Every structure is written in structure tokens, then in C-alpha cells.
């Protein structure tokens, strides 16, 4: 069996930029972990590529060593640290921390706020982030706070309604709250349902009850099996109407 040092030497000889030492897993027989410091070339491709790493892995496997590569990306780390410093410098009173994901050129940013941020404030933070990211060759794809309330999406309102219709607006709001969504008020729910009604996805009956439209049913589609919405619908009917 190869020693961790031999695995490391083999990788270095193959010009794989090993970071730290290769280690042998204490439990898994012949399993090694290796951190590899990857770079991006001018066209944004990872260097060494996954193909190269897979080929090396296969060679080592022939020698009886199963290697698990854990990739680390220094440039990505630097970009994140730079963004954090930039944002904390300008908005230190409002945010505590920020994280960046940039697997592709499109960057996702999360900010950890110290208090509730207004939309305007988040826009300002986003504008600042955009300037910084442009500078390091990234495009801001999405920025969000880590504490945002989980409001039920349009789709979720419809999937809920499909299951329990016909219901009133406040009944629907209550059911969504039971599923741990934040529904700010019945008024909010009414406006959301109204928008869906105007889009032809929800119908409001004379009785004041709401149901999904045929168009919405077709759009939502269905699946076979235990998680089928048709089954949930049937179970919901059975439990409320005996």
C-alpha cells in the first residue's frame, strides 16, 4: 500500500498543485484525501481540469490508492474576502458578514444583516457589490440577505390551493402559515390571489371561496406515486369532508 507521502509525491510529479499534506483516512482502507489548489485560466476554465484529475485518480487507483480530491480555489477566496471588506467598509452599520459563490462567472452574494434592511438599502449594497465584482471579472447574478422571510411564492400558493380548494383567503393564509411560511397579513394574501386571478390562474367564486383554474391545473401538472398532488388532494378531501 502507498503511504500518504508517496501519494503526494506522485501527484506533485504529475504537476498537481497539492495544498497541505495528503492524508490517509483513519477508517477507510487505502482512502486518501488531498487538497488541490485550483486556478482559473484566462477563459475561466479550471486548472487542473476535472478530466486531468480523474485521469490521475484512475492511475493511483491502479496502484491501490483511492484518492478523494477536495478542491480549493484561492482566487475565489480572495474575491470573497475583497467583497466582504468592501461591503463592511461601506455598510458596516447594517451588515455583519457576506458570502460569495462564484462557481461560474455568475456570482451569488449573501449578506448577513445586523438589522432588517429596506429594499433601497439592499439595492445600494447590490450596486456596490456589482462594481467590485465587475472589477474581478464576475457578474452579479443574485444578492440576498440570509434572514429574508420565506413568503409563499405564487406557485406555492397555487399548489396549496389546489390541494384544499375551495377555501377563503384567510383559510389559505392560515394553512400556509402552518407550513412555516410568512404570510404578512390577510390583505397581502388577498392581493396575491387577486394578481393570480387576473393572470387567469385562480378563480374567485361568488361565495368568496377561491379555487385554481383549469389553466393553472394544466400548468402545475402532476406526478405519479406517493407524492402525487392528486393523492394529496384526495386525502385532503377525505379529512375535511369525511
Amino acid at each position: 500500500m502507498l503511504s500518504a507521502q508517496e501519494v503526494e509525491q506522485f501527484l506533485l510529479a504529475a504537476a498537481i498543485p497539492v495544498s497541505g499534506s495528503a492524508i490517509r483516512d483513519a477508517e477507510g482502507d487505502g482512502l486518501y484525501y488531498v487538497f488541490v489548489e485550483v486556478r482559473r485560466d484566462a477563459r475561466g476554465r479550471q486548472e487542473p481540469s476535472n478530466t486531468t484529475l480523474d485521469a490521475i485518480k484512475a492511475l493511483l487507483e491502479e496502484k491501490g490508492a483511492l484518492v478523494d480530491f477536495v478542491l480549493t480555489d484561492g482566487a475565489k477566496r480572495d474575491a470573497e474576502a475583497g467583497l466582504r471588506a468592501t461591503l463592511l467598509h461601506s455598510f458596516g452599520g447594517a451588515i455583519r458578514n457576506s458570502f460569495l459563490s462564484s462557481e461560474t462567472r455568475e456570482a451569488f452574494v449573501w449578506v448577513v444583516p445586523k438589522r432588517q434592511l429596506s429594499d433601497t438599502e439592499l439595492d445600494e449594497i447590490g450596486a456596490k457589490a456589482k462594481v467590485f465584482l465587475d472589477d474581478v471579472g464576475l457578474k452579479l447574478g443574485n444578492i440576498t440577505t440570509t434572514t429574508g422571510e420565506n413568503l409563499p411564492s405564487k406557485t406555492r400558493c397555487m399548489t396549496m390551493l389546489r390541494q384544499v380548494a375551495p377555501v377563503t383567503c384567510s383559510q389559505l393564509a392560515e394553512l400556509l402559515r402552518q407550513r412555516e411560511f410568512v404570510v404578512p397579513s390577510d390583505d397581502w394574501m388577498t392581493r396575491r390571489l387577486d394578481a393570480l386571478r387576473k393572470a387567469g390562474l385562480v378563480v374567485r367564486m361568488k361565495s368568496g371561496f377561491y379555487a385554481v383554474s383549469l389553466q393553472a391545473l394544466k400548468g402545475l401538472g402532476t406526478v405519479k406515486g406517493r407524492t402525487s398532488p392528486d393523492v394529496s388532494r384526495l386525502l385532503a378531501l377525505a379529512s375535511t369532508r369525511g
Partner: protein
Amino acid sequence: MEVVAHHLQMIALARRNVAERDSFGRSSYNRYYYAAFLCVRQVLAQLRSEWETLPHATYPEVLTGKVLKVLSDGRKQAQKMQDRDLVSQCSRAIVAARELAHLMRKSSVTRKVADYHPEILVNFAHVDRFTLNSVDITEAHQWPARAKAWAREIENAWRQVNA
């Protein structure tokens, strides 16, 4: 646990004794890992109860496997319904699941170095921080907060699409 990890980090930096500061330093990596791990496990257990008892090594697979599948399917349906907010929420959760899987792998291997490989010493080359196997303690310090933010992102999107 995060507090304990940070405390160990501070003690490691304050100690003069080489053996002692190494022990405190490597223990802080261990605690940062567990703080992140417990947070991820708690969230995943809420999504599916059988995910509460998984072996550590399988969490990254679950995140890039079943979790990612549900989120991708959800995004497809949201696209079909032209629900732009939900498409965007799913995209964020998908990125979060991939990042979280990577974080779990990296922190778990680092934890193994800390616990089982005393021959790899903590490097105190800087005054105010240290590294273990080239992993900076400032990075480990961020693991729990990152795990929390990304796990929450996944949980929120999951509630939207896994109806």
C-alpha cells in the same frame, strides 16, 4: 459550539507553549466542524426524517443528489409557471446546496487532520491567525455561519417546491 471553537482559537493564539497551542489550535477546527455539521443535520432532518441518522460522509452526496434533484425539478416547474421569484429562489438554493456540499467535505477532511494526524502541526506563522494543512482558521471560523445561511436557503426553497 461556535463559541467554544472561537474560545479555543483565542487560547491557541495566546499560549506560548508549543505543544499546548497546537492542541488548542487543532481542537478549534474540530469544534468549528461540528458546529457546522449539527446545523446542516438539523435542517436536513426537517426536510426528511431519515436524513437525521446519516453517516457524516454521506451528507455531501445527499446535498448534491436528492436535494439538488428536488430543487432543480422545482425550478423547472417555476419556469413553466413563469414564477420569476421562485425561479430565482431555487437558483440560489441550488448554488447553496453545491457550496454546502463542498463545505462539508472540506471541513470534514480538515477535522480528520485535526483529530487523527498530530504529525501535521498547526502552523503559527502569523501573529493573529494560524493554519492547519493550509486551511486558515479564519476560514474555519466562517464554516458555521455559512452552513447556517446556506442550509436556510435550501430549507426555504424546499418548502416552496416540495408540496
